[in-house]
């Protein structure tokens, strides 16, 4: 059985997720940085349906879609911290919030990045702030008093939502706005600091300044 490989891209919030999960479980892997404007044969062969990163290659078996990959990692390597809780209801709640982040929160953030008019920017900003307030409340509900959505340790929702924090910071700087706010979202402010400084996260979370440079080239 060959080594474990992750095909990713440094600026992609989706692609850092498997790397966080594997590090959390102390699993070694080989990392391949992909050039999304000139996709490698390996990527196209491993993810013919979507042609996207991340892809996890376990031997020659590809697993695609970051949330599917997270669950695979959790189920394949059962020693080490769990990513999803064990109770079926808690798992359903974790999946719910991860799906919310992927769908609603992601489109609000994208909206902020891609908005052209002042009107569109204001709308995207409003939606992002609304989403953050919901996620602030969810932190209390899911975390049950712990430091993370996963409780004492980082879990599925932490990884899904936290992977956007580099971009959240970049958008704060670019838009001269405060998204994570001591007044409205104090829980998230503390959580974000803890998540970004976590051993499994700090080496893969992209720096806001680099993301801003990247955004200027690609989006603006």
């Amino acid at each position, binding site marked *: 059985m060959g080594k474990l490989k992750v095909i990713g891209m440094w600026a992609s919030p989706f692609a850092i997720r498997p790397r966080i999960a594997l590090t959390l479980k102390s699993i070694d892997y080989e990392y391949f940085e992909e050039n999304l404007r000139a996709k490698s044969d390996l990527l196209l062969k491993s993810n013919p*349906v979507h042609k996207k990163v991340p892809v996890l290659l*376990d031997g020659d*078996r590809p*697993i*695609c*879609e970051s*949330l*599917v*990959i997270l*669950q*695979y990692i959790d*189920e*394949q390597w059962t020693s080490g911290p769990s990513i999803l809780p064990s109770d*079926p*209801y808690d*798992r*359903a709640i974790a*999946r*719910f919030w991860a*799906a*919310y982040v992927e769908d609603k929160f992601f489109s609000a953030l994208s909206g902020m990045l891609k908005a052209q008019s002042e009107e569109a920017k204001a709308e995207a900003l409003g939606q992002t702030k609304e989403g953050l307030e*919901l996620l602030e409340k969810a932190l209390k509900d899911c975390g049950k008093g712990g430091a993370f959505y996963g409780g004492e340790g980082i879990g599925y929702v932490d990884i899904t939502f936290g992977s956007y924090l580099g971009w959240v910071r970049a958008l704060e700087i670019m838009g001269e706005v405060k998204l994570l706010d001591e007044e409205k979202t104090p829980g998230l402010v503390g959580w974000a600091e803890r998540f970004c400084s976590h051993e499994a996260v700090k080496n893969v979370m992209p720096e806001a300044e680099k993301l801003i440079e990247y955004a200027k080239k690609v989006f603006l």
Partner: protein
Amino acid sequence: MADEVTLLDFWASPFGMRVRLALSLKGISYSYQEQDLRNKTPLLLKSNPVHKKIPVLIHNGNPISESLIIVQYIDEAWPTPSPLLPTDPYDRARARFWADLVDKKVYDCGRRLWASKSEGDRDIAKAEFFECFKLLESELGERRFFGGEELGLVDVGFLPFWTWFRVYEEFGGFRVGDEFPKVMEWVERCLEVEKVREALVDPGKVYEFVVQMRRKVFGLD
């Protein structure tokens, strides 16, 4: 302790039918509560405050939303009979990937087929719809069901859209059976299972409903 299971749903919703399928396959008794989507009940709004959508499953007072999340919950809370996911992690990942693809593509492309006002939009939707069905046929391969010998997550996720095939066909100008014979053969195998038939609605009624909706809500004829 007796389980109390309630489903808040709308009869024509393919997402709701996924949950009805899972409950039926596992022989779980539940109370079905039809929702009027233009006049949402306090219970629905309380149970799904974030999205205010159906389906919502309420199990012993605990609400779960999002159809595929509900189906996986049902599978984990009632692991037998009819397990919907295989035991091997790679096979489970494969099932989740394809269920996710159905989720991302089928409803959206289908909707653009019957709700589009322009022929151009409809043609684009049709091309994407065909691409998606081709991929699903290829994934099914020679297997009896996506789940192998028994229905699994992908079968449960995809099958309810059969009740909408006539809608897609009439407005898209094609026949699923002509373009995708393997899909129709799979549908027929699924419908041989009594518990499956019980959970699905009459495609004729869905078609009538959509014709009405296009007229009243979208002003299309």
